[in-house]
């Protein structure tokens, strides 16, 4: 693998020299044997599918702007993108963590089951759509319809939320520090309890943000869409 340089158990891939497929083949099949604990990826230049399907307790640093599905289905690994990412970063994340130093496009953390996704900048539309147990912390603001149909887990937004927040929510909980520009169907603002402050404080701490948990508001499901309501006379 001539494009790789082994230095102190770190492995470096330059995507101007090596394909994403070769990188991912290494991460899936050769990582354990190599003994590498740290992988560095250079020149992502918006390429898709970098470090998808990881299943090892190693760190991956992606230096530059990356494309779609970065770190998708991640287990165990700690992935950091030193730039922006395209759609669906950390889609279906199972465990481990993904940190984006810049902004994320749509569907960040979509359908994630576990682990932590941190977006230091803004996240775009449908952040946390259908999340199923992961935690997402956004340092900036989120776009419209974030946490759409989110089933379990926590979305913490340190900035503002665009309209349609939490539309058709199940049991995921959203905390927002800034302005909420509109709630989606069946989402409602609820009073914060001690448990909520502790939950927000713990996630802010894990994500490395220094905000007062008291400044956050809670949004959760009103659960009116859970059951058929005959009073609506089928006029939906």
């Amino acid at each position, binding site marked *: 693998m001539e494009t790789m340089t082994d230095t102190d158990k770190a492995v470096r891939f330059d995507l101007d020299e090596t394909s994403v497929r070769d990188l991912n083949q290494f991460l899936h099949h050769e990582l354990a044997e190599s003994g590498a604990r740290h992988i560095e990826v250079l020149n992502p230049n*918006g390429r898709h599918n970098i470090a998808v399907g990881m299943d090892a307790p190693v760190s991956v640093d992606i230096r530059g702007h990356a494309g779609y599905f970065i770190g998708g289905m991640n287990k165990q690994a700690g992935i950091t993108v030193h730039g922006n990412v395209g759609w669906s970063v950390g889609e279906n994340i199972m465990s481990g963590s993904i940190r984006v130093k810049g902004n994320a496009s*749509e569907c960040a953390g979509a359908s994630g089951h576990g682990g932590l996704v941190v977006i230091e900048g803004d996240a775009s539309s449908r952040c946390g759509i259908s999340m199923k147990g992961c935690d997402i912390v956004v340092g900036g603001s989120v776009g419209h319809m974030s946490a759409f149909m989110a089933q379990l887990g926590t979305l913490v937004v340190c900035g503002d939320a665009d309209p349609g927040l939490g539309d058709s929510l199940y049991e995921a909980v959203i905390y927002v520090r800034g302005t909420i520009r509109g709630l989606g169907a069946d989402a409602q603002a609820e009073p914060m309890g001690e448990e909520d402050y502790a939950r927000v404080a713990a996630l802010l701490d894990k994500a490395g943000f220094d905000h007062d948990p008291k400044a956050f508001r809670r949004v959760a499901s009103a659960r009116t869409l859970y059951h058929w309501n005959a009073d609506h006379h089928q006029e939906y």
Partner: protein
Amino acid sequence: MCGIVGLLLKTPALNERLGMLVTPMLVSMAERGPDSAGLAVFADRDRGEKYSLFAEDAHFDWDALERALDEALVPTPRIEPQGRYARLYLDVDPDTLRRWMAEHFPQLHVLSAGHFMDIYKDAGHPAAIAERYDFPALTGSHAVGHTRMATESAITPAHAHPFTAGEDFCLVHNGSLSNPYKIRRKLERKGIRFETDNDTEAACRFLEWRLREGDGLESALSQGFSVLDGFYTLLMATRDELALVRDSFACKPAVVAETDDYVAIGSEYRALAHLPGVKEASLFEPRPEEIYTWRR
């Protein structure tokens, strides 16, 4: 899918390099649209009335067209052929030319009309099309391009984007409209003619109709939000302006990079990654139903 790209140069010194800069943008979006591609390029000055023509026959005799035009319409027309494509300089209004062309050369398509805009579009892989028409050599102040993955109508050069209506106006579209026939029937009742059954043509002719009725681009687009049903990222160009909108769900992607030298738009960041200074550019994603315009 489908890929869209746009580049508007703010620094006139870069105009000579427009083709060099925009061609890799277009080709990088080939995975989003491998079946056909097109590019609209705007000159930085008035070049007189001109037309982009496309011949169905690969061996079309452009000299025969020149002779016929010379006899029937205008003495000494200037034609610059490039395979099945040709640029025609002719001081004749578009309606007259289109009528004459339909009667005498029905195998020729008038791809565009205007004093500033040329449109190239063809079926095939975007990289092959860029090479066929030597896109890197093109110059001008701004360009919009499209790579197509057909989902709703045939793969032919005429069904490729950009679509145009009127003069010096074009539009590229990523997405699909659910009510193109409703829009089409409404416009046909006003005497507006369609050339294909492509859904994007309905959006293009609707917006051009509004512009012709006196609306500005922003006002036309505001009406577009209530008339166009479906998914769309639309990128439009006039002789001095680019405009970008996304549908209310923002279902189709777009990313914008702006520096002191240019505004660049792509379906994905990959399309912009090679541009000079893009790593320091201000990058953002357009919001749903918000109108973005840039003037050269």
